[in-house]
């Protein structure tokens, strides 16, 4: 089974709030593989908005993504890009 991991930093000013989390979850949901998000040992399903919000991803937080299954590598790559693009926000 494909397994891929990546650790990404929240760089947008407002952090991983509801709209940003929506984008992350919508992206994750496009992949059939299982995707988890983790912070300081606390884990959540990356396809759950509430789970993602509960990571309390303020600016500067580092979050670990782990994907298992079909398209795992591509999923982690695209998620990394989304973090880097500040979830489409201007600051």
């Amino acid at each position: 089974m494909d397994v891929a991991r990546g650790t990404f930093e929240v760089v947008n000013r407002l952090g991983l709030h509801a709209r940003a989390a929506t984008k992350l979850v919508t992206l994750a949901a496009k992949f059939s593989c299982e995707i988890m998000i983790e912070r300081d040992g606390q884990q959540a399903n990356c396809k759950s908005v509430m789970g993602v919000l509960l990571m309390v991803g303020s600016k500067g937080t580092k979050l670990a993504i782990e994907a298992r299954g079909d398209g795992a590598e591509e999923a982690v790559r695209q998620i990394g890009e989304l973090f880097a693009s500040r979830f489409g926000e201007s600051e």
Partner: protein
Amino acid sequence: MKTEEVEEKSDTTSPSDEPVHLEGIPGSPGLAIGPAVVVDVRRVGVPRHHVKKHAVDRELQRYDQAVEVAARGLREVSERIKGTAARAEASILEAYILMVEDEALRGDVERHIRLDLQCAEWALDGAVESMAQQLRDGGDPYLAERSHDFEFVGDRILGSFLGRPKALSLPALEEPSIIVAKDLSPAETAGLSRDFVLALVTEMGTRTAHTAILARALEIPAVVGVRGILSRLGSGDRLVVDGFRGRVVLNPTQKIIEKTTERAEKHLAIVRGLHELKDRPAATKCGEPIILRGNIELPAEAAIAIGEGSAGIGLYRTEFLYVDRADLPSEEEQYATYRKVLEVAGDRPVVLRTFDIGGDKFASSFQVPPDMNPALGLRAVRLGLAHPEIFSEQLRAMVRASAHGHLRIMVPMIAQLREFRAVKELLARATRDVDAAGHARAAEVPLGVMVEVPSAAMIADELAREAAFLSIGTNDLIQYSLAVDRTSRELAYLASPFDPAILRLIRGVIKAGKDRGRPVSVCGAMASDPLAAVLLVGMGLRELSMEASAIGEVKEAIARVTLAEAEGAALEVLELADGAEIEQAVTAQFAPRLSDLLDAGSDDS
């Protein structure tokens, strides 16, 4: 809605002692002074009870159903604002939809249901609250604020459970208070007690909305459509409510309070005076008898209407049996309810309207397609004919109840003759079934048409040939003729019963009834306005039906006018082409002599 209120509060509230006058729409006459109780009907009264082990799957199913309803509602709003400038709102709605359907939330809810044996509402409330708490404890002030989003989502799901028990919706009041809410459902309004509720104020609604109609029936002063009041007021704040003029005063001065008290006493004296005359039959000054009947929504209102001197029930809205519950009322339950109303009415006639569900009334028993304009969609007789088994059950219950008094059946929303014939056939079959089951019934159950769709008014002569009676529902007739949503505040100016188009339609229906020898009545809000009632008598009507609280005033108004005067005025205004001019002409002729009835709430004197 939580988030919105918090945001509104932060930029509009400026605590000050200056009185603030807010304009709304008069919902129910009367004056009140007292402390406010702000009601957020979504957050109060979350049911908390344990479920049996074998029932946990059913609780989960209930949860999934509520999620589906809540998500559908949000998607509708989202669709509506798509393509508008509200991009930020659209994306937050996307987030809400995902949160409503969230797997992690469902996982927590399932755990509370399966392991703690909590009912679905309790499980949801607990899950949402613990998630919101985690977010608040996270240490990021911006994200901590988002805990309101969780609560909002929880409220949406909570409000979507089928068969939500209504008794839990309102808080217990410790002293007589003024209820202030965004909106109240008919069931919530109906559950209010006159002794403890001084008045109602809502942000939503119009005069013909159900909150207002029920408030009038319960004789609770009400002002509806008061924009932004919730962001300016908290529980315990004193306010003055003027249900005659549709005004609310926050932070009233001592002078305003004294003046209001004086007006309230004056009004009370008039009401008492009218009440003493309640046993006098209604007639014009010259002695022409006019039949005044009451409109009711709840069986308990029948006694109120009869107590006001009503000559029967002109409109019993039976859909109350269907709303706010998960199952359908059985034939037996309906029979028992209708029978009670007939027994209260004694030898006075009672007109039962078959269910008018759809439109602005939501019934959880029926799944109505979400993609329709509800007012123009599958409602009332259309819904009944689409579900003949449910409709027939109601008709059988009515036929059986006919054994206990003078029962008539009225069919709402008839648009074509074909629909009326179909109902006639169903009624004939229901009658045969009742006979076959060996139940008693009246020899004859008159079947009439509620004329509220313009097409029905235009073919009134055809309908009168086959119907036992016609009754004009002015609220919907106005809504459909002038293409104006009856809950729209901006368009309230269009919704006038004095509009020439409405008067001409009514004139046509009256003529059709006369030609065919069928009784015609008016059972809309128009009949409860003393001026409009005088005009209707002048146009030839001899039967009016209205909320119980208006009967005394209308009776007194009619008694002060001769038939010749009313007929003269009707002839004159039917020549006019403008609604405002018509209203002015009627006012100029009759208002001086009815001023105490019209201006009981005026502060000019």
